[in-house]
Structures are given as structure tokens and as C-alpha cells.
């Protein structure tokens, strides 16, 4: 007997994991109000701009990058996270899911693959922060 399918969305079986939710729970509402809005010559609909607005804390460094849309300012945090993401996606160092970035770096060093020292330093700077410490997919069940 065929089951009558209700109009179910995929999000009913797989919970949505939103990046935005985390940052909101971490920072208080006061901090949100005090956030600096960085202007650049970029497109106002640029999603990156919105992400920056919700994630920048008042003391972070800001850098300007030239892209097709004009000058886009990128924070040091963003660059760091991008570098860590590239480290995760480099297949030469082995699988990245299930272990922390430090563990993976240590393993790559022991196997003689010469992982960049900058990656380890970046993770150690913010090792209490799970976004830095763990791999890209750490929130998903294995």
C-alpha cells in the first residue's frame, strides 16, 4: 500500500544549520547595535557585506581587496577562516572529517607532508572557538 506523501520539505528530515544563529547567540544585542558598518564601493546586495556586518567585532582588522565589483574590504578573520578552509580541502593531507584541524596538522607533519606552519598558528590563536578548531563539517553527524 503506497504511503500518501504529505507535502514535506527536505528540511523536515534534515535540520537546517544556519551560520547566523550561532553568532547571534554568542554576541549580545548591545554589541549588535554597536557594530561598525563598513562601506566600500561594492554592490549593496553583496551577501558578503551582510555576513561581515553580523560578524565583525569592533577590534578586528580590516583590509581592502580589489575585486570585479570594486573595492571590497575583507577582515583578517575572514582571510584566516578561508585559509583554514583551504587546508581542510587539500586532499594531500588525508581526510578532514571527524578530527580537529590541529590533529590533522599533527598527522600531516608526522607523515612528512610539510603542512604550512601558519595554519597551526592561526588555529592555536583561537583554539577555544569551535569554528577555528574543527573542520568545515564538524556540525554534521558523520
Amino acid at each position, binding site marked *: 500500500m503506497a504511503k500518501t506523501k504529505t507535502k514535506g520539505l527536505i528540511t523536515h528530515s534534515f535540520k537546517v544549520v544556519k551560520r547566523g544563529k550561532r553568532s547571534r547567540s554568542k554576541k549580545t544585542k548591545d554589541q549588535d547595535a554597536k557594530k561598525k558598518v563598513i562601506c566600500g564601493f561594492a554592490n549593496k546586495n553583496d551577501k558578503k557585506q551582510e555576513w561581515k556586518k553580523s560578524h565583525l567585532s569592533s577590534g578586528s582588522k580590516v583590509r581592502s581587496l580589489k575585486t570585479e565589483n570594486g573595492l571590497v574590504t575583507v577582515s583578517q578573520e575572514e582571510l584566516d577562516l578561508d585559509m583554514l578552509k583551504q587546508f581542510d580541502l587539500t586532499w594531500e593531507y*588525508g*581526510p578532514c*572529517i*571527524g*578530527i580537529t584541524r590541529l590533529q590533522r596538522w*599533527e598527522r600531516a607533519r*608526522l*607523515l612528512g607532508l610539510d603542512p604550512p606552519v601558519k595554519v597551526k598558528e592561526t588555529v592555536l590563536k583561537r583554539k577555544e572557538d569551535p569554528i577555528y578548531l574543527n573542520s568545515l563539517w564538524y556540525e554534521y553527524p*558523520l
Partner: protein
Amino acid sequence: MFVGLWGYTIKAAFSDAMFSDQAAQKKQTLMGPPSTEIPTFERVQTSTYTNRSDCFRLGERSFTRQYAHTYATRLLKMRPLLVKRAIQKWGNDIPVKTLCELQVGEICCVVGTIFKHMELQPSILREISEEHNLLPQPPRAKYIHQTDELILEDELQRIKLEGNIDIQHFVTGVIIAVYGSEKDSGKFFVEEFCFADLPSQPPLMNSDADKFLLLVSGLGLGGGNADCLLGMQLLIDMVTGQLGDEGEQSSAAQISHVILAGNLLSPATQSRDSLNKAKYLTKKTQAASVEAIKLLDEILVQLSASVSVDVMPGEFDPTNYTYPQQPLHHCMFPLASVYPTLQLVTNPYQADIDGVRFLGTSGQNVSDIYKYSSMDDYLDILEWTLRAGHLSPTAPDTLGCYPFYLEDPFIIKECPHVYFCGNAPAFKCREIRGVDGQKVLLVAVPEFSATQTACLLNLHNLQCHPVSFSGFSSMDDGDMDVSH
């Protein structure tokens, strides 16, 4: 061979002057009047002992990982060894490529992990899937089938193998280097292949005098088999010097070490019935292994009071199931753990005893390869694992294994002098040689509960002999003359 007062016999099969011959040289002192002075024999001590099984100890365990890490580290670690062997075998100028760089028709060498696709391999997914309505498969002796195929995998891709490669001689998880070319069909035609072969061997610094080491496995306590208990008591009495005349006793004093290689408890102690019964029925019952462990404790206290004993856990012993098995806990042996001569060690076990490097397991790795390949002889499988450079390549595929991520401790880094496995069906030993001059003695230690045989190894010249025990009770000895 001698016959003692109570009609027990001890046979030792040997090829050159060994244990029993030395005993026979001394004068017979048993059938004589009791003497006023009792001769004592000092046991030879193990002069040097280093336990090298630290890589098999697990500290804090985390099971939130997949096994991909184990396979990845295995391949990454063994790749340079295999490239070196490939260059040695096929010349300096062969191209070593990864699978994504392969061109059709180009002869090259590829290094990767073998995956054996087996039709009959038990698959839990197939069993619990309701679509197929399959009943669970009964356990078989061998799971090989004609339609099995070999696939070579490296970090990114996989390719099917065909050609001069015996499919049933391989199991999943071995790292090999193949030499051949890719055909139009998309399969890789293998002309030759090679393993990592024996690693470098530390120098042998053995003792000058004859010193013996006893290897026993498969005691099988708690199995309800009374005959093997008799044989076991004979073994203990022989080792502790309570059997035989002065000649035998002085020879027994030269046994410096005993290794119990697994399966100390019988499979009968692992009854699963109590799990399914209702609580009120099983409330007052005790697990069968409790009595068996008490018996083992009594045996160990007799042994460790006299000689150094290393106890390795086996498949049916109360420790973790996955490889590497952790040592049995000392709280189970209140009587024997008082003695410092008792060492509870891991399975697999590696140690330097009197300058001789020992490496061995309780046999699960060998019996697993036996099930999934066409190799029948335990000694052949032992040699094969040594040449493949890995203790148990089938872990974690068909043999339970801890999800390692940092390194694979089963890769054989240094070639042992003695390589043994416990719970073999029969005693066998052989010496093999490596390309770089390594010499290894392979020993298949038989199961004591079935064969009543133990192995006596001479640490001076690395020769191994079986020692078998048999007892006969007065009931079945029909031709005993009782008429006077």
C-alpha cells in the same frame, strides 16, 4: 621420554640434542632411596626484557571517527616503502603514477590499497534490509567465491585489476605496487606486483648459553573438558620443576620465560543466552567466565611464583573485542598479580626478550585472513602478512579495529626475530629469509585445549620444538596387568 611414578608420559619431538636429551644425560635419580639432601636448581633469569607494545596501548578512546583515517594513514605511511621496493624490482626509470594520471596503454607502476569485492562477504546492511527479505547467512569456513574481484584504490580513485594476479591470494586492506598498464576496457592489466616486504631487522643479541622460552596458547579454561586440564597441570608441573628426575628438573630450570598467547578462556564461557532471557531467570546465575577466571588465577599463581609469564588476551577473553586488545585487568587475578613476574600484555604483543625481538598475536588476524582468502596453512598466512608489511590488513574491514587516525600501529616497522601466532590448528615452524639478510623464525602455536601441545623455543640458536602432553587414566587402560 620417561615414565614417571603415576604413569604419565611426556613426549618431546626433537631433531637435535635438546631439552630431553640433556635430561637423559644426567643420572636417573627417581627410582632410588630418598636422600637426605634435596637438590635445588636455580632458574635462569631473563637478562634483558623490554616491552615494545606501547603503540598498541590505547589511552582515551574516541569512537566518533570513521575508518577512512586508518586507511589513509596506512597508505600514506607505506607508499614510500613500496615505491622503494618497486624501484628495486623494476628499475630506476619506471614511472610511478597515481590513478588520475594514468594514460591508456602506458606501462607504469601504481601504489594503492587492495579492495576485494566478495560476493559472500556478510553485509549487515543486506541482512537488515527488509526489501530483500534475506535470512542472516550462516557462518562459513571460507567466504571466497569465483566471482570475487580485486580493485586497487589510491587517495582519489579506484580501478579494477586483472592479469597476472591471483585474486584469492589477496585480502582487503593490503598495500601493493602493481606494474602494468590500463586497457581500453578501463581495467588495469597487471604484469607484476610487489609487496613492501620485510623491513629492516635490529641485530640479534642473544644469549650464549641455552635458554628456553615456552609458547602456549588456547588453554580453553571453563570449557568443561577435563582431559585438557590434566595436560595443563602437567605443563605447569614441568615448567615449575615438580616433574621428573633431577635431569628433567635441571632442564626445566633453563626455561626463563613463558608466553600465553591468547584464548585462555574457552568459547563456552561466552554464553549469549542470558542476554535474551528474562531478568528473573538470570538473577542468581553467574557468568561462566567467573569460574574460569578463578581457575586461571590459580594456574597463573603457580606459574608466576616460579617463572616470568606474559599473558596475552585472545578472542574469548574478558577484554575489549576490537584490535588491539588491551591487557586483562589485574583485579581479575588477585592471587597472581602479587608477583612481579606476571605481566599482562596487549594483543598483538611485541617485546625484546634476552636480545631476541618477538612479535606475535593471538591468532585473530591469521584466522580472519584464512576466512577471506584461499590460503590454508597458518604458517603461509603468517609469512604473507610479514611480506605485506602489515600485521592485520583485514582490520577494520572484517576484523574489528579501533578507529586510528594519527598512525596505523599494525604496520610492521622493524622485522622481528620470532614471529608467532596463537591458536593455530597444529604446530608448525619455519625460518624465512628476507632480501636484506633478515632471518625470521615463524611459529604457529597450536591450541592447547585441542592438541595438548606447547612450543619450546631455544633463545640461543632460535630453534623451536613442540612439547606434547598426554595423560591416561586407569579406566581406559585395558591391558594393565593386575594379576600377581
